[in-house]
């Protein structure tokens, strides 16, 4: 963005105030399909946020817009319903809570792993481990849920059977398992993301200026001291910025993790029902468009505000890394 400002300052635009030339027309035409995509799949839904304030009913033969205009205004009633039902606050709390744990872990675990793997003497082994740890990133949650199922399945799962053999009958998808799923979810989140994040941080670690290390060595620093006094301080800005950026998404939850990896088991809702699962269930299972629209609206607005906040903070500390 700053670069742009510079250009403007120098006034280097080759032609003066632009008219719509032939060139522009051609560029307009070749990008038209993408622009139409944006209108249909991004901007019309954006206008759909008014749904949250409507009592939407599909009127036969009137289509979406017709029905939208024809349906009554509901004022804040949809939100009232949402908040009067006590569990909506719990759902928000759960969403934010899980995200906070994920963000903190994401700021610590992959960084530690990246530093550690950069120390391996055998570079071949290091490459193989990186590749293997990258694997979960490419798995969909549907597939991952089968991996989980292989261990936890009620009839045949490896762990379930093992517990059974030592005399414990445990149903991982039943009500009692609510105490264990928060840990499982955190574990699964780490399982899926840690390899990828580690490789990203590893690029940062190997990109650090080697002269710092040489200087540290001349001063007689041990490897551990080098990590503590050189590597971590140099990585700190990156870590903080990644963390703050992640806070921008604090109201969004990974739908696949909470819905799919838990097999949408109703018994587990007390530990798995996050905002995205709630919106999805309200929309498709309970067919309650108004509630789900209100919850969607809430998520969009809060998400927007948190992104702006996160970006604002990053711009304060490290303008070059801000998102916009």
């Amino acid at each position, binding site marked *: 963005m700053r670069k742009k400002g510079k250009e403007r300052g120098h006034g280097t635009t080759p032609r003066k105030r632009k008219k719509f030339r032939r060139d522009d027309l051609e560029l307009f035409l070749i990008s038209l399909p993408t622009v139409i995509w944006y209108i249909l799949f991004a901007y*019309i839904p954006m206008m759909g946020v008014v*749904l949250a304030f409507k009592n939407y009913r599909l009127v036969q033969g009137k289509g979406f817009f017709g029905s939208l205009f024809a349906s009554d205004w509901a004022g804040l009633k949809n939100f009232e319903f949402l908040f009067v039902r006590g569990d909506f606050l719990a759902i928000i709390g759960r969403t934010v809570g899980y995200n906070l744990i994920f963000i903190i872990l994401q700021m610590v675990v992959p960084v530690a792993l990246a530093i550690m793997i950069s120390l391996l003497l055998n570079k071949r082994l290091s490459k193989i481990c990186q590749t293997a740890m990258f*694997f979960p990133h490419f798995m969909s949650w*549907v597939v991952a849920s*089968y991996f*989980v199922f292989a261990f936890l399945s009620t009839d045949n799962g490896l762990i379930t059977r093992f517990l059974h053999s030592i005399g414990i009958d445990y149903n991982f998808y039943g009500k009692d398992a609510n105490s264990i799923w928060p840990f499982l979810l955190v574990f699964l989140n780490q399982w899926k993301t840690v390899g990828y994040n580690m490789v990203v941080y590893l690029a940062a670690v190997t990109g650090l200026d080697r002269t710092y290390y*040489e200087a540290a060595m001349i001063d007689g620093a041990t490897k551990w001291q080098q990590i503590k006094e050189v590597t971590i301080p140099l990585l700190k800005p990156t870590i903080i910025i990644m963390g703050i950026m992640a806070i921008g998404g604090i109201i969004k939850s990974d739908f*696949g993790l909470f819905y799919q990896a838990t097999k949408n088991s109703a018994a587990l809702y007390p530990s798995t029902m996050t905002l995205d699962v709630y919106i999805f269930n309200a929309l498709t299972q309970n067919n309650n*468009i108004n509630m789900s629209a209100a919850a969607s609206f809430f998520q969009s607005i809060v998400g*927007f505000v948190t992104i702006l906040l996160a970006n604002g903070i990053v711009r304060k500390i490290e303008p070059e890394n801000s998102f916009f």
Partner: protein
Amino acid sequence: MRKKKKQDWETGENRFMQVSKPVNMVLSIFFIILALCCFVPFLFVVIISFTDQTSIFKNGYQFFPEKCTLDAYITLFENGASLINAIFISVLVTVAGTMMGVLLNALMGYVLSRKNFALRKAYTMLVFIPMLFNGGLTASYLVNTQLLNLRNSIWALILPVAVNSFYIIVFRTFFTSTVPEELIESAKMDGASQLRIFFKVVIPISLPAMATIGLFLSFAYWNDWQNALLYVVGDQKLWPLQYMLMRIEKDIMFLADNPYLSDMTMAAMRQNLPEDGIRMALVVITVTPIALIYPFFQKYFISGLTVGAVKG
């Protein structure tokens, strides 16, 4: 190149930066364990897919099964019309979607990289705003089903995934930094249209960017299940592999959650449910293409990220 690196590594100076042998040993073991944690679940599923159903009944899923068999795969392909169809849908959606997506994103990225374009500012906003704000699931769902009539249409699996602001920014950054302005100007002097310039000049020198985004897109399409779950539930002919897996899972859960169903319904449902081995074989078929491909393209995923991080 490689040789030089090795020498560099072995020179005395560098040896000081290395950890001691025992520490290296501990770290190596630690990372081998981590790597196994990430990969073994898949291996386990592969083993289950080769396990005989009777030993599953007896012992549950095991790493070292009593009896192995190819039955699951044979059954799948012998009476697997629905499987073949799901594979076909998954492949079709991935190929068509990736081609369309690369084209749409690259064209927009190219247009945004033209500094003289009259609408450049407006278009930048157009691409940028959706990264900050979106209408949410409910609005998208209603627009897609009631306005665009995408329910039970193959387009519901293709269109929503095709364009992504992040991909466009990657393209724009790539075009601004690697395609020389003079090249485009000279083509323009020769009277080439922008469309022609894009296809004849820009694309041939932008293959790395195309490959990167193509990979992102093809993995996104192959792994997509949310759009299937939202839009094509009603038409079995449109189920991709991922959704077929979900559906089987759902039926299993249904059986487990409803122990009071009449025996008749239970028996009928159980009969329709594929056996454990077959389910896992389906997972193996879904995962194998990715597992075989990604190690070779891993670096593109990382480079794509760093390219996207550069602001223009």
